[in-house]
């Protein structure tokens, strides 16, 4: 019972510490570490894994359109409501958890177990400054960028694919999409993806710095906890956001009375 409370308290403390130290990002080694994190999470992921995630989005659209016997309106609604608002941010978050979350938690747990975090403290280097802040900021920024990238490719893929499945041209679909698209859709995904990035990074950093013990066996345990909790937090935030902004639950299957 105490462990979850300790984790919640630790997560809150870590978040507050990161927020308070944001100006330290200007310090050269911290900024370098931030750039490395953005490169690892955003740029290297964009080449292969994200393309596969986008392919998955396109397949979902194809199956749904076929099953629902969709017309132009429904096709565009699927693209906007399902792909743009929900699948895009979630697919990017999954990629970030699987690639970066595992790497960050394993790296930090390894540093903790091998005494490298202690060495940093002896050198007068604050762990939050040097390890946590650049990772949290870098993962947040990269998650937002990846989300936009996934959304763009998935929607474009859907628009290209749809004319082969339903009786509509690419131009018709694009025009209808721009009619339905509202700025709130964009802000919604940016804010949500920043929050996804934040919880993934904070959760993975916390578990990495607080492994269950200081043996080599603690590293996989820390990674498992970090990944499962990050995934649960992402799903929770997604549900809360969908309810708060659009009044819908479970990806629009249930409409809340608001």
């Amino acid at each position, binding site marked *: 019972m105490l462990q979850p409370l300790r984790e919640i308290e630790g997560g809150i403390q870590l978040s507050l510490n990161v927020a308070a130290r944001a100006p330290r990002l200007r310090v*050269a*080694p911290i900024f370098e570490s931030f750039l490395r994190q953005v490169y690892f999470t955003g740029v290297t992921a964009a080449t292969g894994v994200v393309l596969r995630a986008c392919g998955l989005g396109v397949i979902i659209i194809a199956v749904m359109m076929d099953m629902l016997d969709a017309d132009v309106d429904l096709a565009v609604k699927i693209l906007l409501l399902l792909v743009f608002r929900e699948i895009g941010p979630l697919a990017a978050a999954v990629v970030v958890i699987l690639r970066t979350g595992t790497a960050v938690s394993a790296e930090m747990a390894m540093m903790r177990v*091998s*005494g490298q975090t202690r*060495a*940093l403290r*002896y*050198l*007068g280097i604050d762990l939050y400054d040097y390890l946590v802040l650049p990772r949290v900021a870098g993962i947040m920024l990269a998650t937002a960028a990846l989300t936009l990238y996934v959304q763009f490719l998935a929607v474009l893929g859907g628009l290209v694919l749809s004319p082969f499945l339903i009786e509509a041209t690419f131009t018709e679909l694009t025009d209808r999409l721009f009619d339905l698209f509202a700025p709130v859709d964009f802000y919604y995904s940016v804010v949500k993806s920043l929050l996804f990035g934040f919880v993934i990074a904070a959760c993975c950093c916390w578990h990495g710095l607080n492994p269950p013990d200081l043996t080599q066996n603690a590293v996989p345990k820390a990674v498992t906890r970090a990944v499962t909790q990050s995934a649960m937090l992402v799903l929770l935030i997604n549900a809360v956001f969908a309810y708060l902004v659009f009044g819908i639950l479970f990806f629009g299957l249930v409409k809340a009375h608001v």
Partner: protein
Amino acid sequence: MRYRRKTARHEVQAAVPQGAVTRVHVPDDDAKAHLMTAVLKARCEPGEELELFGESAAGLPRPRRERLRARVGAVSPIVGLITNLNAWENIALPAAYHGAPALEQVAMLAHEVLAAFGAEPRPFLARIPDELGMLERKMAAFVRSLVTAPELMVFDALEDGLSYAECRHAARFEAEYRARQPQGTVLYVDTREES
């Protein structure tokens, strides 16, 4: 520096006069870890007494402890290298983080010291710790500790894991430190008995 720790099994005492070279042989690894931790943290636990640079470490507020710590350098397994940074990044990290000394000065120091030990600075600095041998890792840690111009240099188990020829190399660390800090104090800590 003065240190004293008394337990049921043994008592460890060390008195290190300023500017001198002192060798302390402690009974076991636990005693060594306590001594090193106390000196590196400038903090003593219950049952310990520590005086650093004429100032008792007991109950010192954090900023003053930080100032004392900054005057101590160490080549110790406790203050190892960061494995995902190359040798240059490891050496430059404290200076880059604290903003002093300038990185040009650090680079010059690193090149001078490594050249003095017969290492080719450029390839040496580009390697990560896993690609370095035991002596090379100790050299990198030594250069990193020289950057802050410490008044007290602690060599913890300096010869551990080194061959006879490497030990002769490592023995030159003291002279290199002396050349840069003529008034500095040197402390060797080991668990082995003096032969």
